[in-house]
């Protein structure tokens, strides 16, 4: 919301002459590295860990899967949950064998083990608590100027309501789906530290502050659209990781920050081995809420929105 207002002012100021265009640049090549994309939730459904290889930044070819690896998640009670690459496409999957079976339990730690070629990698992550989503509401919105990036000018804007737990340091990832499609542009990553945006403790135990509540609608909804909000509990290091992911993908303009590498929490089992991987391993408890937008239930537009 804030961001959109800003854009208007610049358009009006006529300084909208700033522009971007895609150009060709050449960059150095480097060694290929293993990439591990392991985000496991406490839901009783198929869980996937993706293994792939890096490629030159401007190589537009398909992603190269890393096949033939051994992938296991261990609970802190040493129960192994093997992930298997059924289709030989780098997607290593664990399926619940009986209805309701799941890997994760809130409060417990889990370890990821990956063996690829001769190298062995591991990482540890803890499942944090997640509060329920109490409610959502929505109101009719019409922006005076068409927003950029094909976003809708008119429709329903939604907020979700949930309260952070008392106690500092709870982190969350808010994810929204419109008609079962996840809003997954980098700039749409919304993460919360307690009830607010950043560490410091001041937002501890609060109802999520407005800009986080508004993460329910990265774009506007139409009547009869299905809306689903997911709240992931995430470890603190995942909060900082996602912050970097968002920055790395939306880092243009005159207030860009110096690009920096996104660190991983996955290590080589042999500490002296210089071979490193990229990616991240995290475990999340999930709460969610689903609804269908009904114009009759819309609330009046709040002041200042």
């Amino acid at each position: 919301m804030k961001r959109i207002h800003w854009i208007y002012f610049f358009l009006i100021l006529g300084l909208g002459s700033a522009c971007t265009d895609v150009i060709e640049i050449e960059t150095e090549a480097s060694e290929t590295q293993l990439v591990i994309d392991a985000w496991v939730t406490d839901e009783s459904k198929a869980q996937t860990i993706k293994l792939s290889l890096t490629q030159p930044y401007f190589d537009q070819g398909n992603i190269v899967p890393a096949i033939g690896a051994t992938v296991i998640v261990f609970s802190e009670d040493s129960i192994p949950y093997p992930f298997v690459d059924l289709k030989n496409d780098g997607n290593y999957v664990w399926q619940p064998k009986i209805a309701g079976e799941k890997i994760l339990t809130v409060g417990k730690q889990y370890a990821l083990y990956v063996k690829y070629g001769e190298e062995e990698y591991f990482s540890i992550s803890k499942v944090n608590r997640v509060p329920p989503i109490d409610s959502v509401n929505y109101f009719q919105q019409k922006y005076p100027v068409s927003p950029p990036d094909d976003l809708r000018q008119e429709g329903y804007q939604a907020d979700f309501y949930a309260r952070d737990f008392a106690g500092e340091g709870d982190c969350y990832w808010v994810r929204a789906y419109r008609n079962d499609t996840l809003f997954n542009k980098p700039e749409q990553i919304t993460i919360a530290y307690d009830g607010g945006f950043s560490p410091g403790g001041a937002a501890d135990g609060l109802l999520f502050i407005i800009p986080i509540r508004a993460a329910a609608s990265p774009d506007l909804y139409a009547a009869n659209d299905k809306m689903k909000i997911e709240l992931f509990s995430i470890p603190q290091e995942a909060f900082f990781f996602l912050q970097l992911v968002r920055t790395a993908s939306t880092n243009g303009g005159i207030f860009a920050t110096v690009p920096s590498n996104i660190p991983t929490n996955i290590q080589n089992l042999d500490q002296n081995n210089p071979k490193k991987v990229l990616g991240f391993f995290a475990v999340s408890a999930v709460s969610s809420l689903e609804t269908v937008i009904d114009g009759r239930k819309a609330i009046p537009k709040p002041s200042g929105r």
Partner: protein
Amino acid sequence: MYKPLLALLVVLLSMQAVFAQEKLTISGYVKDAKNGEALLGATVFVASLGEGVSTNDYGFYSLTLPKGTYELSFSYISYLEEKRQVKLDQANVKLDLEMKESTLTLETVTVSSERVDENVRSIEMSVNKVDMRTIQKMPALLGEVDVIRSIQFLPGVTTVGEGATGFNVRGGNIDQNLVLLDEAPVFNSSHLFGFFSVFNPDAVKDVKLIKGGIPAEYGGRLSSILDVRMKEGNSKKFSATGGIGTIFSRLAIETPIIKDKGSFIVAGRRSYIDVLAKPFLNGDLKGSRFYFYDLTAKANYRINDKNTVFLSGYFGRDVFGADFGFDWGNTTASARWNHVFSDKLFLNTTAFFSNYDYRLQSDLKEPNPQDAFRWNSNIKTYSVKPDFTYYVNSRNKVSFGGQMIYYTFQPGKAEAISGGETRTIGQDSKYAIESALYISNEQKVGKKLTLQYGLRYSLYDYIGPGKGYTYGPQTGERREPTSTTTYQKGDRIAQYGNWEPRFSANLGLGESSSLKLSYNRMAQYLHLLSNTAAASPLDVWTPTSNNIKPQLSDQIALGIFKNLNDNLFETSLEVYYKSLQNQVDYIPNSDLLLNPQLEGDLLYGGGRAYGAEFFIKKTKGKLNGWVSYTLSRTERQVEGLNNGDWFPSRFDKTHVLNVVGIYDVSQRLSFSVNFTYGTGTPATYPTSKFVWQGFALPHNFYDERNGYRIPDYHRVDLAATLKQKKKIFGKGEGEWVFSIYNVYNRRNAFSVYVRQNEDNPSQTEAVRYSVFGSIIPAVTYNFKF
């Protein structure tokens, strides 16, 4: 600790006794005959002795000579030379003088220029003075005459990019420039995020940039002093100047308080696009506010021959927003008292207040008790600064004085209200005192050598109430405090003292050339924390603390100055080397706002900068202007970044070429052109990409910083100024200024960055970001009564 300074003072003052033999003093003020403005740096020269002196920042001069009769010649660039016979036999002589501007600069009329070779003769090096009349003639972005944009055409001055706030001098960060407006520091010199500077050109009299050989009277910043002096106001008659430009409407009024005794000037500017846009704003945009303005005022009064007082003030603000609003601005106020103790001892005492603050608020239209965010930040400084000049004799000029600054920082406090519950976040207020004493002497040794040697001692106290955090060693990652100490009001949290030696020498080489050498050490106790490409108005000035050490720099510069063709051309070649200590850098993803433990996100390292600057200036004639070329390198080394190796800083440009040309066709019509070329600034690009949760992310395998360069920058601007034939209301003058910025419509890159394609996340691309992607024409109308 100040003892050595006092001893030096005693030695220098006693020199008078040694040299005192039947000598008398001529002193006085030099002013502009038209409006009574003091002329700064005018030369008073006695040809028979080959000795002379320049007027100081208030137009005062003092010259002590053996008894006798002398012809004094007074000269100042583009003013007619004045000669006076002075008989020194009985008593000291007081001689105030008014000089007339040469209106015939177009013709080759001899503005006798015996001493117009000030650039060669003076002790100053690495100093650029830009005449306001030149700045006003240069093509300007959107037709808005701008001091800071103009100095970017000088050698050794760069910027991170178009539209960025501030400027970088010889490898220094933007916070290493002491920007003074009538001796009060201005903390944010920009309007609109950096597009325009805060100085109203109608109110500025003189602009001087000191990049090296910095005299002992200045301190507190490492890289440069930008000394902006405001007009005093016409003390002869009422006058008004103003104009309507694309962005600003301006009006300045000057008038005598009592003729030839006192005057004042009030100058205001305001952007007016919001006024024009108002009828088109409806719905949510109704009530939107977006404007910026500044108000500059100054008064002076000459009480008697010995006492003059000045009061100046600046108030400027940028305001943006509707419900969600953001506003920021500077306020400065300074009071100065010039006192002439004797014909030889001049005192200026300045007391100033300076404030920079900003505010963000989410519920501006109507307060929202349920959900709101209100954030504010400020830095306030209070200072007293006495500066004495003692004209010992015609060969020695001693300057001494001191400064005390009291700072209060409110780095950022915010009130966050969610669901009716209020929380306060941010940092505690911080307090510091910076004091300094200095002394220096400018001495002529023989016929050819002039020396300036001085010493400054600065002492800094970081005081309570406040918290002192302790952190572990620097790793390149965020550090959590290992312990916290709470201090009470007045407790000392940290203290630092620094000796700052200053030295300059000028060796005359024949008639019109000289060799100059300078060394200076500077200490800086304030740091502008900014981790973005261009600094933003949100960036916070942070005091030196128990963790953040004072920044230090040592610079040595050597230059050859030569004037050609009877001073028609001024040329110089300077080389410099500068070493920087305790430079602040940032961890990736640093959180610098509202973060009490922000020191844990800082990294410290060193820097170095070196280069050569070539400068040639044609000072008069129909065609005038300058060409400057700078070859330079500026680098940083910070543990935890770039594998600990040196890397080029964000604003490093290997080659910079600037050309400024002004062609006066007639009294009515003039044309001007700017050309600028600069090597592309450094950039960091990834070597590889990896896909994680559907995001294509960049990765630099070698973890290198600034290993690439964006495309070179170049641009031409043009302007034409046409004075109206007809007088406005019978006496006023009007002129039209037509300007074109970026004439050949080059899409210069501010930055080049990488991203995933918006429509196809698995595809990646490089994007060129240009602040001005097109040609920008503008028309401005100026008037003068």
